[in-house]
């Protein structure tokens, strides 16, 4: 699944570690989601959406 996490993070000038800390996950998790190697669970997707004040659909795209 594609996502805009890397772009949104860059817009806020956050490092992967900073984003990981704000989401209360590991930096490995942020990296795996950004590179598309891991699709987050629904609770984590909601946390990401809330952090960026967007809807899940605005961040994640299930169209391959």
């Amino acid at each position: 699944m594609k996502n805009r996490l890397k772009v949104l993070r860059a817009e806020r000038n956050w490092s992967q570690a900073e984003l990981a800390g704000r989401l209360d996950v590991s930096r490995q998790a942020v990296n795996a989601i950004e590179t598309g190697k891991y699709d987050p669970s629904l609770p984590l997707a909601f946390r990401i959406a809330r952090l960026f004040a967007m809807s899940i659909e605005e961040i994640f795209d299930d169209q391959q």
Partner: protein
Amino acid sequence: MINNDAREASWGERNVERRTRRRWALAGAGVATSIVFGLAGQYVTSVGRFVAPVSDAADAGSLLWAVGLILAAAILFRLIWREIDEVQRRRLVNAAAVGGVASMALLLLAQAAGRMLPFAEPMMAVFVGAAAALISAIIFQRIRG
């Protein structure tokens, strides 16, 4: 004010540092447990057997060691599970599956050809082989990102 803003801007990184410190402490506890049980295992499987090769005390020592190791591993696993996130949990489950499959395959080999293998304790070789497979799977997934 600027300091407060800077602190506010990087609270996530401080959170990650705290998590990392806790994880290193757990890793240290894991290494310490492995050393303690490794040394105790050496005693109950070789030194103790040398003193009393076949005795109830030696068998009870081996049993205590095995039960203690399983309990310690279960407690450590629980603590680690609580500390890690969903990506790391999935990797740990994958690695545990690799360890389980490896133990089944190695057990078959040890049962079929145990006497031909150069190990005094084929079952211990199965245990070590499965543990090595589990750790290798964790490292492999970590390197792949």
